[in-house]
């Protein structure tokens, strides 16, 4: 819970990780390159006071996670979204056992989502059934640029991907978090392209597709498909920290998202440990669309409440104190949300 100026905010951090990128876990140079890339993101976008040392960043452990999120970070509930990266790390990047043990010890505060890779075929499908039972899965995190043998990525509308989505539906796994990365097979394509999300969102209307970092670096393509598909949502991983270094760019991202998909389908996350939630939440509650950006309506306190927690709480059936609940906006399920602003009429 975060409170400021007499307003309370229920906080769900919808994308967190517990990783181990220490040298002894790195399988090859790509393990180092990957965490170095994350660390540069962290150093580049964090306020100076929030920058960790490289050693801390390689592995922070469950105790620190609990402290950063729940003791000082205002978070009421957080959702693990692990990336396996088995080709880069001996024991994988996301630490399944440690995250699951934490979740079992703190069931009111943590939800564990797992991951699958459709290139494991039938074996993976059987594993998914076991995982769903063991973890009580409500959601999964899919990293489409995961390397696997001589393939370095897949599309959500590949035939085997469909089998996994069908299995998920059968197992009651409703929330599919999609994280696009730089590689895909074949390499001829734009790996960040979100057109495959469009296809599966149409074919699986009962599943929710949360596109992490709201499609960045393809924000425009994401907005265009999400405005047409009522079950496509925006995750704010990676987008949030722009609030500090590039507040005007952040305003444009939020403004575009609220315009194209509305206030009910945007989920806050710190992407912990890429960044820590405390400063992001404080900054977001203080944030306002700059006055000169008249193409966007000012963001309201209730919109902030939904983004910071209520939207993800609804998706995951997380109990929200009665006095903090809000109704959905009275908006159509598809199409731009502020049509009066389409022609800059608010100017």
């Amino acid at each position, binding site marked *: 819970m975060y409170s400021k100026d007499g307003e309370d905010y229920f906080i769900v951090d919808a994308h967190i990780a517990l990783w181990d990128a220490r040298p002894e876990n790195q399988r090859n*140079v*790509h393990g180092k*390159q*990957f965490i*170095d*890339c994350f660390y*540069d*993101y962290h*150093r*580049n976008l964090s306020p100076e006071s929030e920058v960790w040392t490289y050693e801390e960043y390689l592995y922070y452990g469950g105790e620190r996670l609990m402290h950063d999120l729940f003791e000082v970070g205002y978070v009421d509930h957080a959702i693990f979204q692990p990336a396996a990266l088995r080709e880069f790390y001996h024991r994988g990047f996301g630490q399944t056992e440690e995250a699951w043990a934490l979740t079992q010890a703190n069931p009111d505060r943590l939800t564990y989502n797992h991951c699958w890779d459709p290139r494991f075929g039938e074996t993976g499908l059987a594993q998914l059934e076991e995982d769903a039972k063991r973890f009580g899965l409500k959601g999964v995190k899919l990293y489409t640029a995961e390397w696997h043998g*001589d*393939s*370095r990525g897949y599309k959500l509308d590949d035939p085997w991907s469909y089998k996994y989505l069908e299995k998920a539906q059968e197992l009651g796994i409703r929330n599919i978090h999609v994280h696009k*990365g*730089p*590689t895909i*097979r*074949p*390499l*001829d*394509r*734009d*790996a*960040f392209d979100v057109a495959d999300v469009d296809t599966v969102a149409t074919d699986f209307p009962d599943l929710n597709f949360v596109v992490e970092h709201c499609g*960045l*670096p*393809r*924000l*425009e393509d994401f*907005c*265009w498909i999400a405005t047409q598909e009522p079950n496509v949502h925006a995750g704010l991983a990676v987008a949030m920290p*722009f609030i500090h*270094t*590039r*507040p*005007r*760019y*952040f305003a*444009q*991202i939020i403004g*575009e998202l609220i*315009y*194209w998909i509305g206030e009910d389908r945007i989920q806050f996350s710190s992407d912990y440990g890429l960044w820590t939630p405390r400063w992001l939440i404080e900054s977001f509650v203080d944030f306002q669309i*700059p*006055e*000169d*950006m*008249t*193409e966007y309506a000012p963001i309201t306190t209730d919109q902030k409440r939904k983004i910071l927690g209520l939207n993800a709480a609804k998706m995951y059936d997380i109990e929200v104190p009665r006095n903090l609940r809000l109704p959905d906006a009275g908006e159509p399920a598809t199409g*731009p949300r502020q049509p009066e602003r*389409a*022609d*800059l*009429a608010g*100017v």
Partner: protein
Amino acid sequence: MTLTVTRAVPGLDEQAVRRALDVVMDPELDEPITDLGFVRSVDVHENGVQVHLRLPTSFCSPNFAYLMASDAKDALTALPGVERVVVELDDHHDSDIINRGLAADAGYKGTFGPEAASDLEDLRMTFRRKAHTAAMERVLTDLLRARPGLEESRLGAVTLADLPTGPATSALLRRRAALGLPEAPSSVVMVDEHGVGYAPEEVPLRLRRARSTRISIDGNAHFCRALLRTRYPGSEEDQTYRAEGAEPGDPTFIPLTSLTVKENA
């Protein structure tokens, strides 16, 4: 060791090489690699030139990385009198693969083998279209600012002749040429990649969508530039200055307050 700098190719020095590389664009960011600071070093020697490239992360998309590196090699090979060109991409997860491919002039398929299906022309075209869309949005929004009273729905009738001369218009003309769109003064500005315009009632939403493309490209560009500076301290000296999203006067964030664009305003 004796250090000798031989300039067997008349007039070829580091500056000439960098100017030759100005034509190499980052397709996603729609900016020359020389402005972005991606050219790490230039070494001119007898009969040839060696260039090292660097990118903001090890995990920049390998297809774009390959495009930039192979375009760089092509641009340098085309220089008169240059016989030997070495282009190497540093610190990327596919550096070995790409550098081997470039050295052997193996082409895209030869470089990536079974991971490559046909070629990268569709990819290149996708980003040419986006670059055109963004350039189009910039001139039209500039026009709205410059002409209070111009109704947004009438932007669909604006022609190239209506645009002021300046860098934004020149940029649009270059993007049109890349798509093979007409450059005659009477040509309509607001068109799709096939040169087809929009009905007045469609214009506001199309402009809005074009704006999201422009925001996306600008946002990626300033993040990539900043990541390069984090990864390679000092690289800012090789970057052409651009405002990056923090500054109120940032020209990539066009303030629209001064516009009068309401219907019947």
